[in-house]
Structures are given as C-alpha cells and as structure tokens.
C-alpha cells in the first residue's frame, strides 16, 4: 500500500487581514530655520573726528555705505535654502498575505519629511528588487496594476502604525507634507493567478518617494541648484541620509520595500492499515478484508477562509466502513448511507464555525477528517 501525500483542491473565500505595526521611529521636533526665511545683517560704526562724535553710519553689502544716518545703508541679506531630508519606510516588518488571483492587495508604507519646511513628494511603486532579500523570502513573481493612496489616518513620527485602507483615492504625489510630519501610503496591486503565484511564494515590491516641486503635483522633480548661492532665491540641497536597502544619500530619492506572500490551503492525506484480521499489532498487511484508515489534514497558510469544503472519493476496490467518518475527532454522520464528503462537505478548524479554517499550523487550526474503508 502506497502511503502518499496529495494536494486536493478545496473551495475557499478570503478576507483581508489587518496587520499591526511595531516599528517605532523617533524624530526630534524641528527648530531649524525654514527655507525662504530672510537672514539679514546691518552693522554700524561710530567714530569721532577731532574729538567730535560723528553721525552713525550703517553698513551695506558689496562696495559698502558711507552715507551717515540711521536710515541709510542697506542690510546684507540672503534667503535660507531648502535642505530636503525625508525617508520612506515599510511599516510592520512583515509581508502581506495574499492568494492567487487576488486583486488590489494592500501593503503599507510611511513617508516622513524632516526638511526645513513643507515639501512635495512624488510616489510610485514597482517590482524593482532591493539588493538583498527581505523577510527571508526570495522574490518569485511580479505584482501588477500598482495604485497608490494616501491614508486619511493620522500619522505620528513617534510611533509606527499600519492603518487600514479606507477607500482613499489613487494619487501620484504627497502635496505639501509639513516639516517633521508623515503620511501613510497604501500600495495596492494584483496577485497573478496560480501557478505563477502559488502557496509559499513571495513577491517583493518597491515604493519610491522623490522630492518634487511645489505645485507640480509630482510631475517635476526637485533638482539641486548650481554651486553658488542665489541670495534672493531658495536653492535646493538634498540631504537625505538613509542607506538601507540600496538607498543613496543626498539624491532626493528614498526607497522602501515590502512583500506579498501567497498562502493557500495545503492538504495532506495519509493512509494506514489498522487491522487485517490476522497479523499482530503493527504488522498489518493490505490484504482483502483489511481495514484502512485515511487521515486528511487541511492547513491554512494564508488568509482566513470561509465555505471551505472537502470532496473525497472512496478508492476503487474498497468499501466504505459506514459511520467511520470523523471531523476533528467528532463523528460526522453519513449522508444517504455514504461517506459524508463524497458529495462535498463543509470542514472547519476545531472550535471554528462550519467552513472556517483559521490560518495556522498547530492542532488548534488544522482541520482533520478521518474515514475507514475495507479492502475488497
């Protein structure tokens, strides 16, 4: 008698899980001078001629000033330039579970602006890979149809969270993100069908945040100005410092990576001869009249299921032992005198509602069906 494991298809419906984040990042509140602030200096000089104090003279830039009087002279001024600092981060250190063919599956990122003033950021997602695998899983397939959405949920730079997508509109940029504040960004994408996406495979995706100019809605990226300062205008300096996952400092771009992980149901089936009418215990042979017990274990590696249904067949050359079927150890009544799963029947995790198999690999979640046949 061959004892083998088989995969069987079962029907399932899926529900998205809400994942809880736990990766705090702390930023000190900004006291840095905002860009576009004018810095101004007017010096003055007092002096005497032949013992007589003279009217004060104020300074001027360039060739200077020699016209006396407090109302004369010109301030030496320059504008504070933009120091663009920001980071894009994945929020919860774990992949988002998906299943083959599931569309618009959400991963969550956070973008934080620590520039010396408000800044726009273009956001985009793709299948570009980080220099090393994340979450211990290699990338096995691509996601498609990326859309990005900015969460309406409050974002704190002190505590990392993972909010739930609430139907926010798709967009391509974050507008005027205030200094020392953040926004959560949802990336939604579609999972390919089986077998491209199969149980246990992962897809790593990338979010790219790039500093973009005010009012361009993400269309125009910021560029660093030439070498000399333009005292009358706000110049740009890129100063982001992140180097994780292949990020390059001071280039106006921050990337973060997240992952989708395909979890489906796995079904294993084993058979054991439990008596043959002749042999001692443990030496049973598969001979006519022997009783074989089948054990089918269904484990959920993915999202919570409902309406899980098992369909079994009685193998050729065997006869079902009536009343021998159990689900999770409890008797399951025959249907019309036949094994109850021959026409398809709901199964569930122990203590779960009918049809519900909870994700997990312990006895508390695995649905176990047993039935017996005799060999003809």
């Amino acid at each position, binding site marked *: 008698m061959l004892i083998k494991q088989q995969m069987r298809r079962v029907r399932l419906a899926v529900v998205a899980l809400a994942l809880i984040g736990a990766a705090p990042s702390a930023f000190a509140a900004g006291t840095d*001078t905002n860009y576009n602030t004018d*810095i101004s200096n007017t010096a*003055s*000089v*007092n002096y005497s001629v032949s013992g*007589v104090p*003279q009217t004060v003279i104020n300074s001027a830039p360039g060739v200077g000033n*020699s016209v006396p009087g407090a109302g004369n002279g010109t301030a030496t001024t320059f504008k504070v330039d933009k*120091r663009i600092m920001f980071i894009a981060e994945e929020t919860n250190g774990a992949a988002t579970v998906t299943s083959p063919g599931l569309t618009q599956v959400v991963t969550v990122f956070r973008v934080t602006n620590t520039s010396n003033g408000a800044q726009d950021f273009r956001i985009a997602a793709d299948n570009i890979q980080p220099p090393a695998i994340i979450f211990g899983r290699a990338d096995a397939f691509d996601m498609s149809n990326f859309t990005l959405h900015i969460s309406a949920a409050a974002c704190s730079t002190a505590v990392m969270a993972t909010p739930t997508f609430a139907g926010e509109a798709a967009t391509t940029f974050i507008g005027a993100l205030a200094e020392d504040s953040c926004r959560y960004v949802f990336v939604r994408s579609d999972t390919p069908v089986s077998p491209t996406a199969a149980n246990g495979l992962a897809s790593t995706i990338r979010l790219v945040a790039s500093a973009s100019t005010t009012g361009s809605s993400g269309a125009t990226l910021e560029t660093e100005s030439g070498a000399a300062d333009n005292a009358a205008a706000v110049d740009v300096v890129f*100063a982001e410092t992140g180097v994780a996952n292949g990020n390059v400092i001071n280039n106006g771009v921050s990337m973060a990576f997240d992952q989708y992980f395909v979890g489906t149901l796995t079904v294993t089936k084993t058979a054991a001869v439990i008596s043959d009418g002749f042999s001692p215990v443990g030496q049973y042979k598969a001979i006519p009249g022997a009783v074989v017990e089948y054990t089918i274990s269904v484990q959920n590696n993915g999202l919570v299921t409902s309406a899980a249904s098992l369909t079994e067949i009685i193998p050729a050359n065997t006869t079902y032992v009536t009343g021998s079927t159990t689900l999770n150890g409890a008797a399951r009544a025959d249907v019309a005198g036949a094994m109850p799963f021959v026409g398809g029947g709901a199964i569930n995790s122990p203590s779960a509602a009918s049809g519900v198999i909870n994700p997990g690999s312990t006895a508390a979640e695995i649905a176990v069906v047993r039935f017996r046949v005799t060999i003809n």
Partner: protein
Amino acid sequence: MFKGLKIIGFAAVIACSVSSQAFAQGEGCIVLKSIAEVEQVTVNAKGEKSTKLVPLAKVVPGVEVTWTITANNICKVPSEKVVINDAVPEHMTYVANSAIGPGSDVEFSVDGKTFAAADQLTVVENGATRKARPDEYKRIRWNFKNSFAPGAQGFGRYRAILN
C-alpha cells in the same frame, strides 16, 4: 590803551564748524561694508589644511556663516574712537571664540545694553548671576584702540551658525 579785538570763545567757534556735512555732500568719513561668506578648507598634497573665505554656497540650517564688517576711512583727517557694532542676526547663533578684530577690543552683550569682554559678561538667571554663554550673545562690538589714519582700514569678523 589797547585798540583791537580780544579773541574769546575761540574753541567753541571751531567746534561748531566740525560736522559730518563739512567733509563731503552727504558723506561721512567711513565706508562700512558687511559681507557674508563661508570658510572653505582645502588640504594640499602634503596634507596641510588651509582655510579661505569664499562666497556663500547653499545656506541651510547648520551652515556656519562668516560675517566680516569692514570700515575704511575715506576722509583726509583721522577717524578716532572707531567702534563697529553688529547684532548676531535673527535665526543665527554666535560661534564661541570666533570673533576677531585686529587692533580692537571685542565686547559682547546679551541684553543690548551691557557690554563686556567674553570672560566678564554675565547674565542673571533665576535670581543668580552667572557667566553668559557664547550662544546667548546677541550683539558684538569692536572698539578700535587707535585712530584710523586717512585711507586706513579695520575690520571685525565672527562666525554664526544658521539655526
């Protein structure tokens, strides 16, 4: 009996005629410039560092700006008791020990009224008097010890960090 004028009130007459207007139409005796620059450090092939002042590049929080105030005597008479005054600009913080002014005594002030040398300037905090910290200085002045001869120049310089 003497005939003739006795000369009295001599000095007063002379004093009245000395004013800034006497030297040129609308001009005083000092040309005052205020310039903002940054220090650029270069290291030569031997590893020796040299510093020079260059025009501002980008100025963002954390950048140190060197302010130089230059006074030139453009009159044909000496300028005496020359004092250059400056306020540390708003949004900037004075860099300790950075003020120089060849030929001058440098004084600082926190409240704009009391000036003293760095090691003597005090503030009162919670009823107690303590030495003022350089990051608290709001004003600086350079008191030049000698008169500026015609055509002579002096300067005051200091660094401040943009907050």
